């Protein structure tokens, strides 16, 4: 009677492993073990992720941005040598994308960073504490996270305007919309 029991146990184990393998998000490994922590001590997020203030996608920094500090080659860490090896061959660092929104969601970094001045960490999590690149997004975002923040946005009061709030900024605040059309199109 032990035979079928063992077979069932093995089958169950295989099934569980299969489910884990298929359903769990795969870990992402980056070509360079980039420490956000060290960089954020000296720089702002948008100093390297420059496109966050210019368009919908924040993107990963270009080699040019890295070399504006690292070009001297004085660094002696293994990771910096990897960076310079890419640079010598005239290549960009093949960073892999970690954060991805579903294709029916249209999010603009520019509006949130420049106009609303939302902190990067409120969606991306405590990136500034990381010594190595994250294998997965630090936060799993759902529509409720977006809506919760958007619902907090209130229209301008007359007081604000008397205090000298610019009319355009007042308009911007009024437009913190929970209308479906704003993000889904």
């Amino acid at each position, binding site marked *: 009677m032990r035979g079928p029991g063992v077979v069932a146990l093995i089958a169950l184990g295989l099934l569980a492993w299969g489910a884990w393998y298929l359903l769990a998000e795969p870990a992402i490994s980056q070509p360079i073990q980039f420490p956000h922590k060290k960089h954020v001590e000296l720089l702002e997020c948008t100093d390297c992720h420059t496109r966050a203030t210019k368009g919908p996608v924040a993107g990963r920094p270009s080699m040019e941005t890295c070399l504006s500090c690292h070009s001297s080659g004085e660094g002696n860490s293994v990771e910096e040598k990897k960076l310079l090896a890419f640079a010598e061959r005239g290549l960009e660092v093949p960073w892999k994308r970690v954060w991805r929104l579903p294709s029916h969601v249209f999010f603009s970094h520019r509006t949130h960073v420049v106009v609303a001045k939302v902190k990067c960490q409120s969606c991306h999590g405590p990136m500034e504490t990381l010594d190595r690149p994250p294998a997965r997004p630090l936060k799993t975002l759902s529509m409720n996270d977006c809506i919760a923040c958007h619902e907090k946005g209130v229209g301008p009061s007359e007081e604000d305007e008397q205090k000298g709030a610019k009319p355009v900024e007042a*308009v911007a605040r009024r437009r913190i919309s929970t209308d*479906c059309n*704003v993000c*889904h*199109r």
Partner: protein
Amino acid sequence: MALWGMVIDLDRCTGCQACVMACKAENNVPAVGPKEASRERIISWMQVLTEEDKEHPDGKLRFLPRPCLHCDDPPCTKVCPVYATYRDPEGIVAQIYARCIGCRFCMAACPYNAKYFNWHTYQKEGPGQNPDVSVRQKGIVEKCTFCHHRLQKARERALAEHREIEPGEYVPACAEACPARAIVFGDLSDPSSEVSKLARSPRAFRLQEELGTKPKVIYLTEGEARG
């Protein structure tokens, strides 16, 4: 708050179909292929309807470009069981693809046949498509959105530059493409805008006005009233 509307001058329209093609390219509208087309499953958010004069069959054809009319009192939104189609605060009748369950009630309710169903997966995401508009999947309804993504982009630009949207900054692809300048787009709530002035003209009429749908696409013609 703006109330977006469109005026189409039928006396200027030459039936060239530039608006149709501009719309297809802008909004990732799929080509369904001949087999599906023969089953009357063509998707074309903007359509140039033709009208023949029955008494003079050799005479000129008359053209009527028909986008979604973005009714101010839309019949389609009232039958949607999942709030996938609704009139947004600025008067645009929205279609939220992620919410749509494909019941097609809205298609039955629309008196202008402005809604289209994806019977199959007609296209997948790929290069050459407009990244600002989603690629619709099988089993959902789609329609003209007044190029609503362009409004979002114009608004984003204006906000980042700390100013208001200027008139003419947000124009749908069809109006932009029309070589005869038959399509005028703008804010109907502003009485001094070009669309408002044209909408008040004695040449103006709306399609099937008697239904009470209050379309925000207004037609102009010198000829006898149609619709």
